[in-house]
């Protein structure tokens, strides 16, 4: 047997469930999953890695679109899996598409912000796609497959 230096894959998975806290906040009383939401942003907006919290600035507006976006369906807990002694990945994907039903969004948009509405709307991730408009129609954003290589959120040692 031999020892191998590595981040522990279980730790990365536990980061996705807020098991570890190296700082002082937040205090988490609930043991249930937080509520996450998905908001759409105009192509002219500035949403990126520096985004820390949901903001209505640059968010789409239009018929039947509610500011803040839609609630994300979270039916599958994060998974952490090893592929070797030095490699592993923790991952999570929403369990249903984001659907904005019968909306009119006349100004082009190309971004969705995933954020945690339970934790003061703190930002999680930004995902872009080809610029779109919607006219009295439905915008559906389907998630990638929930696998080690394609999941929406992945923490990996490699």
């Amino acid at each position, binding site marked *: 047997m031999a020892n191998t*230096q*590595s*981040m522990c894959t279980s730790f*990365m998975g536990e980061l996705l469930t807020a098991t570890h806290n190296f700082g002082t906040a937040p205090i988490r009383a609930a043991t249930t999953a937080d509520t996450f939401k998905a908001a759409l942003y105009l192509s002219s907006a500035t949403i990126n890695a520096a985004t820390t919290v949901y903001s209505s600035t640059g968010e789409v507006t239009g018929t039947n679109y509610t500011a803040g976006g839609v609630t994300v369906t979270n039916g599958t807990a994060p998974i952490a899996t090893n592929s070797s002694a030095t490699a592993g990945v923790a991952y999570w994907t929403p369990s249903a598409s984001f659907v904005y039903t*019968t909306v*009119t969004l006349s100004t082009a948009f190309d971004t969705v912000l995933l954020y945690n509405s339970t934790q003061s709307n703190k930002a999680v*991730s930004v*995902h*872009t*796609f*080809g610029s*779109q*408009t*919607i*006219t*009295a*129609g*439905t*915008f*559906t*954003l*389907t*998630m*990638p497959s929930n696998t080690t*290589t*394609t*999941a*929406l*959120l*992945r*923490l*990996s*040692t*490699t």
Partner: protein
Amino acid sequence: MIVTTTKGEMDDSLLEHRTGTVDNDNEATTWTEYWLDGELVHRSVHVTLKKMPIFAGAEAASF
């Protein structure tokens, strides 16, 4: 088929139907449009995200 449009519910036989697709490394997208006398009255889009960038490689410190 009844289609929701900017003019209200309409039978699609009265409308011109257009569709399109985009397929690249990031997404597979389909869109469908209905036009009435040269005016866009309905547009729906379905974007399927494929593979998102990995966050970062995590590494344990060496001593």
